[in-house]
């Protein structure tokens, strides 16, 4: 999933668009979904955001759906949790109920409505966030944070760890391949031992890599700050009208009687 999202973030039609523009649209849609809080708004936002990702940013629909489904386990479990009520007394005015020993499980109209509202709201806002992360590489988002005056130290640590994640992930994959070739994951016990070896060696690799980076930076005149040049972005002319239409339709859907 990590590599899939990262690949499309670097290879979509909106790659060079200013991150502020894309983040503005996504955050606005999320905020509207949260504050208007109606099923219609959520479903509409979901539709719009899928359309923007698939037709405007040209990301394959399979990828968009797969990314949206990343949290389906959490969503399914918690929506069921909201819809179901648990009580010791037999509930009145329930749409559906069943007894489980001394416990009563029930679903009322009210809780079902809350659950559906929650489902649409979460899907709508997640789709908006996904448009942002599928069209914008993390380097651009970090650049956006820098423009928003986030602490310089935080920006540096984030920039470094974005790079380090892929370095460590490559190392991890090599180690897993080597372990698998030696039947390191042949049984449950072996798997646990291999995972522990993997975790501890990864820590050592991370430490040594950071030391090596330090040496390399010192050799190049490191004074205590890592400076990076900002990239050049373009403003997408069509994203403004699209955003305006999306926002207007969401507001109308939110106020519609």
């Amino acid at each position: 999933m990590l590599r899939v999202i990262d690949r499309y973030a670097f290879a979509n039609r909106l790659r060079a668009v200013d991150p502020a523009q894309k983040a503005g649209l996504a955050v606005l849609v999320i905020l509207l979904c949260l504050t208007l809080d109606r099923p219609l708004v959520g479903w509409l936002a979901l539709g719009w955001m899928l359309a923007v990702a698939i037709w405007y940013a040209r990301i394959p629909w399979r990828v968009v759906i797969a990314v949206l489904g990343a949290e389906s386990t959490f969503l399914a479990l918690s929506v069921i949790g909201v819809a179901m009520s648990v009580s010791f007394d037999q509930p009145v005015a329930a749409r559906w109920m069943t007894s489980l020993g001394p416990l009563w499980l029930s679903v009322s109209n009210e809780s079902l409505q809350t659950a559906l509202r929650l489902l649409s709201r979460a899907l709508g806002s997640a789709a908006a966030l996904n448009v942002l992360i599928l069209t914008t590489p993390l380097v651009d988002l970090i650049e956006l944070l820098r423009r928003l005056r986030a602490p310089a130290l935080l920006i540096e640590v984030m920039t470094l760890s974005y790079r380090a994640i892929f370095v460590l992930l490559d190392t991890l994959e090599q180690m897993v391949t080597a372990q698998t070739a030696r039947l390191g994951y042949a049984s449950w016990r072996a798997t646990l031992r291999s995972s522990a070896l993997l975790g501890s060696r990864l820590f050592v690799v991370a430490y040594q890599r950071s030391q090596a980076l330090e040496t390399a930076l010192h050799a190049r005149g490191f004074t205590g700050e890592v400076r990076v040049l900002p990239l050049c972005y373009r403003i997408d002319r069509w994203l403004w009208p699209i955003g305006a239409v999306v926002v207007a339709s969401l507001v109308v859907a939110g106020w519609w009687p």
Partner: protein
Amino acid sequence: MKRRWLIVALGAAVLITFEAQPAYAMHIMEGFLPPLWALFWFVVTIPFWLIGLRQIQRIVREKPEVRLLLGFAAAFTFVLSALKLPSVTGSSSHPTGTGLGAILFGPWVMSVLGSIVLLFQALLIAHGGLTTLGANAFSMAVAGPFVAWLIWRGLAGRAPFWLVVFLAAALADLSTYVITSLQLALAYPDPVGGFGASFAKFGAIFAVTQIPLAISEGILTVLIMNALQTSAAAELEALEIKGVRA
């Protein structure tokens, strides 16, 4: 040695009964919390971020090169959480790495690093969200590390090493799980039974994935710490990690 395998066997038995789902630890999804609760958890978490950031700044002023180590530490936690922890029936779950992180880097630093990891998880693998970052950071980057740290410092030397590490990592996971259930229950109280019933409900639902995870992450952390002690004593000493017998 014998006792450690007893723990492994016990963990295996529990895993068989529950069968873990291949799931990331409980990241509250984008858009799931109402605006007021999302804001509330940001307000609760921000002091921890400020203190943690100030502490990191102090360390960096003394030793500028520590920022490189911090970058790799955040990446290490992120990659560790991508590890698939084994379960007996072929299904798996992902560790949170917060217990190990708190032992290695301390809870204040971990509250900042853990939040960076959570932000990256939202932006790179679509787990978690921006508006729910405050709530997720409180349960995973604040509560978990602090519980782990308190156990690690409080029990060090008073109980066997493996038991302290196991408890620190497993209880860090469990506290994350309890806090997340609490956050969901506060935001969505049960229409019949109120907050208490809702808390019990979410707790029961997520116990299926989280209790096996806590146990297997506890075991994994014990094994990692043992391996680190035998093979990375120099690195541990350079990080000035207390309570480790090098």
